[in-house]
């Protein structure tokens, strides 16, 4: 028997609030399968399981706060004989004193009627678009009461708004609670960022490097690539930046990994954290997995998917637990330079400022071109400036010669 536990989704996470199961006892589960949803300071996270087996018992219940490492389910590992099940599975609501109380703040999600009537739902997960789910929360509408008109029977934003319009207005008292809920989540995220960044500032001796890069050739190359693509499929410049970082890390692996208990551990894969600002405040840096292995269009698709799910609060646990370096991109809004704060236990953060037109001198010629400033904040306990400089020079070189980015 194996325990399926609350994962640690970053150095700053202490616990998570259980939201729902996507499997039932007796279901076969495969490594990498999403089996439940947990609410964290970074939003709702879809949690994957990393063993093949059969679900023996589901222990976590909606609304329960569970510490990192706390048991959420019992899994029969492949080949194991089913144990006597009466103990846990037959008992619908364990009320042991050790089980944490459901949180006081009810949300539209935890108040779903499926709970209680049918404590273990399997394939009955509510099909609802993320925007509709958020709207339902904001309006205090029970999404299960909305009639679905979307594809595959999904509840859409319009369905929720119709349901809200039909609903009698006397439900006003639930509104402030829902608002408090969003407010509480924002403040929890603020606390989590504060804790991680304070730890970083306290313990990591940062050193900073920066360089300006002429990106006019890269922008022209990208425009040519995009000219044949539909609007929604156009590759963003950020993809080229992430690719350059991924390739440069192959040559300078000392910046890709984690420093824990006085030892640096190099990451085997290249899962680059992408810092994503959330509307209404806050920041999450989920991983773009295997950033060094994706072809250009697949990388754009993966990035778009990551951005969409981050903003919809639908990240997966593996995207928050294996990030080995972070890239922050201030994009085409904002300022020219950024000096980052490393996200512990990572050892480096790469920053890109906005693209600006600048005078540029080269080979005795002066001309105007479009530039971007790239920066590196790195952990001096692991590397020295010379190594950081080698990395940043490599990033600059790759971005200056875009045709070399995907030539292998």
């Amino acid at each position, binding site marked *: 028997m194996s325990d399926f536990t609350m994962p640690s989704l970053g150095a700053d996470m202490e616990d998570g609030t259980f939201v729902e199961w996507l499997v039932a006892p007796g279901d076969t589960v495969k490594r990498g399968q999403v089996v439940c949803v947990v609410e964290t300071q970074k939003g709702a996270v879809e949690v994957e399981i990393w063993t093949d087996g059969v679900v023996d018992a589901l222990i976590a219940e909606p609304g329960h706060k569970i510490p990192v490492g706390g048991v959420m389910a019992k899994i029969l590992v492949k080949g194991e004989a089913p144990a006597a099940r009466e103990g846990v599975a037959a008992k619908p609501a364990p009320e042991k004193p050790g089980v944490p109380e459901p949180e006081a703040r009810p949300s539209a999600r935890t108040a779903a009627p499926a709970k209680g009537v049918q404590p273990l739902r399997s394939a009955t997960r509510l099909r609802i678009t993320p925007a509709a789910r958020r709207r339902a929360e904001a309006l205090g509408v029970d999404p299960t009461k909305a009639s679905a008109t979307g594809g595959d029977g999904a509840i859409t934003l319009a369905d929720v708004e119709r349901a809200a319009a039909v609903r009698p207005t006397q439900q006003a008292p639930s509104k402030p609670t829902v608002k408090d809920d969003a407010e509480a989540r924002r403040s929890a995220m603020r606390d989590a960022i504060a804790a991680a960044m304070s730890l970083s500032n306290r313990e990591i001796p940062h050193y900073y490097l920066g360089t300006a890069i002429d990106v006019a050739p890269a922008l022209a190359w990208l425009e040519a690539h995009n000219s044949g693509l539909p609007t929604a499929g156009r590759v963003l410049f*950020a993809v080229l930046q992430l690719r350059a970082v991924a390739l440069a890390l192959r040559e300078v692996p000392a910046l890709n990994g984690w420093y824990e208990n006085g030892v640096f551990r190099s990451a085997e894969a290249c899962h680059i954290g992408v810092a994503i600002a959330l*509307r209404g405040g806050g920041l999450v840096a989920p991983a773009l997995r295997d950033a060094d292995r994706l072809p250009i269009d697949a990388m754009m698709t993966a990035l778009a998917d990551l951005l969409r799910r981050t903003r919809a609060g639908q990240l997966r646990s593996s995207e928050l637990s294996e990030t080995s370096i972070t890239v922050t991109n201030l994009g085409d809004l904002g300022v020219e330079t950024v000096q980052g704060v490393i996200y512990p236990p990572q050892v480096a953060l790469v920053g890109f400022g906005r693209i600006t037109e600048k005078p540029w001198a080269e080979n005795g010629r002066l001309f105007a071109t479009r530039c971007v400033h790239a920066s590196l904040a790195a952990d001096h306990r692991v590397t020295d400036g010379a190594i950081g400089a080698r990395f940043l020079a490599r990033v600059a070189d790759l971005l200056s010669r875009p045709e070399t980015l995907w030539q292998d």
Partner: protein
Amino acid sequence: MARLSRDEIRSIVIDCVSEIAPEADFDALKPERPWREQLEIDSFDFQNLLAAIETRAGVTVPEMDYAKLALFDEMLDYLEARQAA
């Protein structure tokens, strides 16, 4: 597709922006300043917005013209003129 009036274009753009940024307040928008910074529409949001406008208004904006859409009125001007093309 029938030619859209400026008011129709404006209402399509507002719809599409609101879908991405539900809190966007168009009445508070300062017309003389870049609108994307005011509404926090980053490059990813902007691309999704253009795709949505393309579907609704039938106007495609090539990447080389992005700079012509800096002010909100400039964007409406551009879309209005472009649908004739």
